[in-house]
């Protein structure tokens, strides 16, 4: 029996639930994870990723020495092209058998050299091309402190708002809709309040796989507390087994289905007039636009029987406490903003918001996507959602960062997807990527690849050379969650501590230290007054941010030592705010918006007869940088496309057969899972697998307001492939829960 040297309490680095982890450490090696049964969010329960998925920390492929390309180290001009390279030269000699120009070899170096080369090149490009040439991807996996500093570096030193992160690819549609209708974009209630619901809608979310601990609470609400769950979505997910109703809509038809529910609520006079009169505006114009959304019309478009839409509408409207929980199936559409507005309207009509056990709850994906957004890792906002085009906000941050008045940019920055599409001469030239993997997570990856190759200088700050880091010029080895201190803000707006379990491996360093070291070098090259980059610990960083962002003003590490606080926490004695909007909305009255049905950008036709929808599986995380370098990969080692038995029959596809899936933008080969989990005419592929990357197929059409891509629907064809066309024919998922033999 092993006795731990110490047990470190921290917060899980995977999803937005924010489970408490206890890392059991022996000889600086985590050998076990437990969770305290009194933990506020997860009550001792974990999922496979949280309990077993930390071993990537020790994976031999982890990079723990700074790397630069040989051309930089030898002071040669940048060679033509931009090579995606994973191999590392550890002795400075050329990499043997290299198929590429040796000038693109990764060579190990020291921090001094790597940081100086990074500062030299960023400053050179900035002084030559100006602010618009600079851009940064912050990181929803990194801490609040890391993100705050990185956006500060680009805003304060390079005077650009070209700052974004993967929130653009996940909930941007929800964020914009909530900002327009309410004036705030976080979950209105905590996820734990699901047990107080009488009725709740889960839509566009495969909660059991993507927020597993929230799914446990949803099942508990149904099984033990008599709540009724309505699942709306094209896949027969596990939660359907526990649901009162399942509305299997066609991907991209959220607006007609939810607007038809609103239609029923209005026509049958199930509305909460008090709420509408006192808390909302724009109702009259809205119901005019609602007239066309009859249940029959919605049935025609979505395939959901009109009677089911009526029944679901009545169930939601007549509940005492009802709430809506949603995921990417709502937001990742070219009309993602409209989809989310259609949900918001349901809450406005019925008054199911502003009380415990109700609410509008977008389930945030990443462990710290809420926090990274709060920290201003977005092109339109400073920390605390303060618009960058507002001179008063600018003045506050100029004061905090010791910048001359009028020095910060008022110009809105580019979004994640725009940054890459502006990667050309005269556009973005330098890109700094902290922990993200656009070469897996962007839509239409062939296009992303083309853009990446056009950048002049790329910095990757990460723990592995992932598909994006493999394009970089400099690789700065950062540390994973288990080797750093700081805070994450979960989907509940709960700010929780992250604590180092052991020192950084090799020469890797915490992100905040890397950023500070680099910022000081940049400042000295620019010859400007310092914006303050010397912190003795991460808490000083948080306190600097909290000095201007009132939501976090009352949060100190001491106060969240045991249990995290739910912001807004405006003062040092404020207990936190689990339920928002009890008296009013941040924008005053909730605003109804007139909606139209807009089909997805690429509809099926004879040539491309299937709708492809993408998502995730329980065992993996997004681009796979962590989980594919973990034992989790043994539990789910290969990409699969789910296809309905009826469709498989027609196309002569059997269980496990290799198939081509092809869209107008790309083609991949992977095995088929023939399953009723997906609907007729719809195929599903998780996007974690580089060797069969779903995002080679997806459509880069954008929502006009949120600029979020349409990951959830594009047209594809599916046809048989040969076994030897698979990237790894020897690998197979043998899991009862996915597949019955």
């Amino acid at each position, binding site marked *: 029996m092993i006795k731990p040297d110490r047990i470190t309490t921290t917060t899980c680095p995977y999803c937005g639930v924010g489970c408490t982890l206890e890392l059991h450490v022996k000889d600086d090696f985590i050998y076990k994870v437990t969770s305290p049964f009194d933990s506020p969010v997860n009550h001792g329960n974990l999922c496979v990723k949280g309990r077993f998925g930390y071993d990537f920390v020790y994976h031999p492929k982890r990079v723990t020495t700074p790397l630069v390309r040989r051309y930089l180290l030898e002071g040669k001009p940048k060679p033509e092209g931009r090579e995606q390279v994973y191999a590392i030269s550890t002795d400075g000699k050329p990499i043997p058998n290299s198929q590429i120009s040796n000038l693109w070899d990764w060579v190990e170096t020291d921090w001094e050299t790597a940081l100086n080369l990074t500062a030299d090149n960023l400053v050179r490009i900035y002084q030559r091309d100006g602010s618009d040439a600079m851009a940064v991807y912050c990181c929803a996996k990194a801490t609040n402190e890391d993100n705050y500093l990185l956006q500060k570096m680009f805003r304060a030193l390079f005077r650009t708002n070209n700052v974004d992160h993967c929130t653009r690819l996940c909930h941007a549609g929800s964020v914009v809709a909530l900002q327009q209708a309410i004036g705030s974009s976080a979950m209105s209630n905590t996820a734990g309040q699901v047990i107080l619901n009488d009725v709740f809608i889960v839509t566009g979310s495969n909660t059991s796989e993507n927020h597993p601990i929230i799914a446990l609470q949803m099942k508990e609400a149904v099984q033990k507390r008599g709540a009724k769950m309505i699942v709306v979505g094209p896949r027969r997910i596990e939660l359907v087994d526990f649901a009162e109703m399942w509305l299997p809509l066609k991907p991209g038809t959220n607006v007609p289905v939810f607007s038809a529910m609103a239609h029923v609520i209005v026509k049958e006079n199930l509305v909460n007039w008090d709420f509408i009169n006192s808390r909302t505006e724009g109702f009259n114009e809205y119901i005019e636009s609602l007239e066309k959304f009859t249940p029959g019309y919605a049935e025609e478009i979505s395939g959901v029987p009109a009677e089911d839409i009526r029944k679901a509408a009545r169930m939601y409207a007549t509940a005492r406490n009802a709430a809506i929980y949603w995921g990417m199936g709502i937001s990742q559409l070219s009309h993602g903003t409209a989809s989310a507005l259609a949900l918001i309207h349901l809450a406005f009509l019925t008054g199911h918001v502003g009380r415990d056990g109700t609410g509008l709850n977008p389930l945030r994906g990443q462990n710290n996507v809420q926090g990274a957004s709060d920290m201003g890792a977005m092109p339109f906002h400073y920390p605390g959602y303060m618009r960058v085009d507002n001179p008063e906000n600018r003045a506050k941050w100029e004061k905090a960062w010791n910048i001359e008045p009028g020095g910060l940019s008022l110009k809105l920055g580019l979004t994640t997807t725009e940054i890459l599409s502006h990667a050309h001469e005269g556009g973005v030239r330098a890109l700094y990527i902290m922990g993200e993997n656009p070469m897996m997570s962007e839509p239409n990856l062939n296009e992303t690849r083309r853009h990446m190759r056009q950048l002049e200088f790329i910095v990757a700050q990460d723990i592995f050379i992932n598909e994006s880091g493999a394009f970089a010029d400099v690789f700065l080895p950062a540390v994973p969650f288990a080797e750093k201190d700081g805070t994450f803000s979960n989907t509940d707006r709960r700010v929780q501590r992250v604590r180092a379990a052991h020192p950084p491996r090799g020469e890797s360093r915490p992100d905040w230290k890397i950023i500070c070291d680099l910022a000081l070098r940049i400042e000295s090259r620019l010859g400007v007054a310092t914006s303050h980059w010397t912190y003795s610990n991460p808490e000083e960083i948080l306190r600097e941010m909290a000095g201007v962002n009132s939501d976090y003003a009352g949060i100190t590490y001491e106060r969240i030592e045991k249990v995290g606080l739910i912001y807004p926490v405006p003062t040092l004695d404020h207990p936190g705010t689990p339920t928002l909007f009890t008296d009013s909305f941040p924008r005053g009255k909730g605003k109804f918006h007139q909606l139209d049905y807009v089909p997805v950008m690429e509809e099926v036709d004879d040539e491309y007869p299937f709708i492809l929808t993408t998502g995730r599986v329980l065992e993996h995380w997004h681009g796979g940088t962590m989980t594919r370098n973990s034992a989790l990969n043994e539990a789910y080692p290969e990409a699969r496309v789910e296809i309905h038995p009826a469709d498989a029959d027609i196309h002569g596809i059997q269980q496990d057969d290799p198939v081509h899936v092809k869209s107008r933008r790309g083609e991949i080969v992977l095995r088929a899972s023939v399953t009723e989990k997906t609907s007729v005419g719809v195929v599903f592929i998780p996007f974690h697998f580089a060797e069969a990357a779903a995002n080679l197929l997806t459509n880069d059409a954008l929502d006009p307001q949120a600029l979020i891509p349409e990951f959830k629907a594009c047209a594809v064809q599916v046809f048989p492939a040969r076994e030897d066309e698979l990237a790894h024919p020897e690998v197979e998922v*043998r899991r009862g*829960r996915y597949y019955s033999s």
Partner: protein
Amino acid sequence: MITLTIDGKEITIEDGKTLLDAARENGIDVPTICFHEATTANAICRICVVEVEGQRVLQPACIVKAGAGMKVQTRSEKVIRARRTILEMLASTMDLSEADDIQAMMYDYGASSSRFPDAERRESEVKDDNPMYVRDYSKCLLCWRCVQVCADDAQYTYAINFEGRGYETQIGTFFDKPIPETTCVLCGQCVGVCPTGALKPKREFLLEQGMSPQEISVLNTGRKNRSKVKSQRS
């Protein structure tokens, strides 16, 4: 609120609480093994038995509700003897080497692991059939917690249950399938509530088997999807 007497001490407590709640909330120690704050109490192990005046047999404190006027003895001779015997029977049939709490109880109650020298020990091979945890049912005392958290006490997944009868009873999967072929989601809630080390994270197990962290970390590198030296022209 109701009032009862435990070990001569008058106790007032909310209606609906168990004898175990009543004792613990008033600083009276009652040992438990199968009981866990996160699972439904099921009175399987019987170590928490107490003597209630007027009851023919000892009562399991974890499930018996406190009643008005009850007179309860938590350390009577009959109780002590029952607990000692339970511990001695456990020690004679299973491997308690990693059950620190139970070993401490044995010391407290003067229980002897050799009281039943002819007992047949429950031995079984370590089941190592998935990437996340191992199952060593030689160490299993059948407390039922793993089955409960796999079912309605947490996960609602129902991958494991009791199999066999009487002495042959064991925790198993349906049709004894390997874990990956069941509905198991590998959440490890079962590992989290196991009191005896019968369920254990794979990496902890490997470390105990003498592998070094270095050896363990190269073990799970998966298939060779990218060799150490590989690059591609893009």
